[in-house]
């Protein structure tokens, strides 16, 4: 791929990513922490909508023969799970995840930009220093490699995608059923009042 594409494409991908995070209000402490308290399911709705859309979009491009080599993350149960636990604790403490730190910094939040950014960099250095001692222990156990559910089950990918879509839409219906039965419909989320800015 040519050099300008290699520079411009990730900047544009990031630009749209940061924009979506900001429009969904994810660069806010209470948004993130309240999903763990079952008080605000914005994060869950956002995440699942993105997953279903991307699952369909990527599969269509693959079927049409337009997709590049789509990267598949590695499944190694001990690492995926333990890493997730540590990640979740950090998220609930700070109201951050690495992506929303960038979005918060863009909104002008100094607690994201400075301790958030420095914390992420420090964490990356600590992880790098411990890598050789820690990762051989975690990455070997129950390692399935770079697989998808349809690889593991030997079924057509669309089958898994449709099943996942149905589960997601069912979840959305369950979340919104009160609202759907009332006067307002899907998508009419009242804007959350933010404190007026100085």
């Amino acid at each position, binding site marked *: 791929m040519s050099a300008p594409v290699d520079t411009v494409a*990730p*900047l544009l991908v*990031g*630009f749209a*990513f940061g*924009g979506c995070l900001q*429009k*969904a209000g994810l660069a806010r*402490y*209470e948004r993130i922490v309240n999903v*763990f*308290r079952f008080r605000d399911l914005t994060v869950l709705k956002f995440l699942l909508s*993105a*997953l279903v*859309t*991307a699952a369909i*979009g*990527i599969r269509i*491009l693959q079927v049409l023969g337009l997709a590049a*080599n789509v*990267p*598949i*993350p590695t499944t190694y149960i001990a690492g*995926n*799970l333990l890493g*997730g*636990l*540590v*990640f979740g*604790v950090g*998220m*609930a*403490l*700070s109201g*951050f*995840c690495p*992506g929303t730190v*960038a*979005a918060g910094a*863009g*909104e*002008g939040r100094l*607690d994201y930009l400075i*301790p958030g950014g420095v*914390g*992420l960099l420090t*964490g*990356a*250095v*600590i992880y*790098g220093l411990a*890598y050789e001692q820690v990762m051989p222990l*975690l990455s070997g156990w129950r390692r399935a490699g770079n697989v*998808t559910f349809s690889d593991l089950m030997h079924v057509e990918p669309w089958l898994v995608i449709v099943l*996942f879509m149905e589960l997601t839409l069912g979840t959305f219906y369950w979340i919104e059923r009160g609202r759907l039965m009332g006067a307002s419909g899907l998508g*009419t989320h009242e804007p*959350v009042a*933010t*404190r007026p*800015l100085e």
Partner: protein
Amino acid sequence: VPLSLRHPWSPYVAGIGLGLVVTVSMAIFGHRLSGAGAYQHLSGFVGRPLAPGSMYWRTVVPTGVTWDVLVLVGSILGAFVAARLAGEYGVRTMPDRQWVDVFGPSIARRWLLAFVGSLLTEIGGGIAGGCTASLAVSGGAVLAPAAFIFMLGMFGGGIPTALLIYRKEAP
């Protein structure tokens, strides 16, 4: 400014938007969406001098201004523009709401916990093989078990921590 850029989006709409971004990033460019990865690619600038013999920075992760680092730069700019257009940009040192009710008005406490929390997410993301963006979203989009095991862990760590922090409030 169009009305749609002045107001927050429904999470469903913003999520579909993110899904399209992930589709382009994964299927057209062959890159997972980056969150934690960028910091791994910057960590070598500090880590290499600290541990010159480390095979981590020699063979496992690149060091430099990579695709992931440019995504990070782009996402700061994207959030900045979106916030400006919505009138939500403002230099702040503390969360707008809720934090003070639980932790008090101390900026030092907020910044310390922000540091510790973000440090834990980066280490956890390293162990898990990705973060919310690069594993939960990008891996979930190809329906990889890794993504769903990670999300199980994420909620498994986040829920008890949040309940502990908010134990004095009614559930």
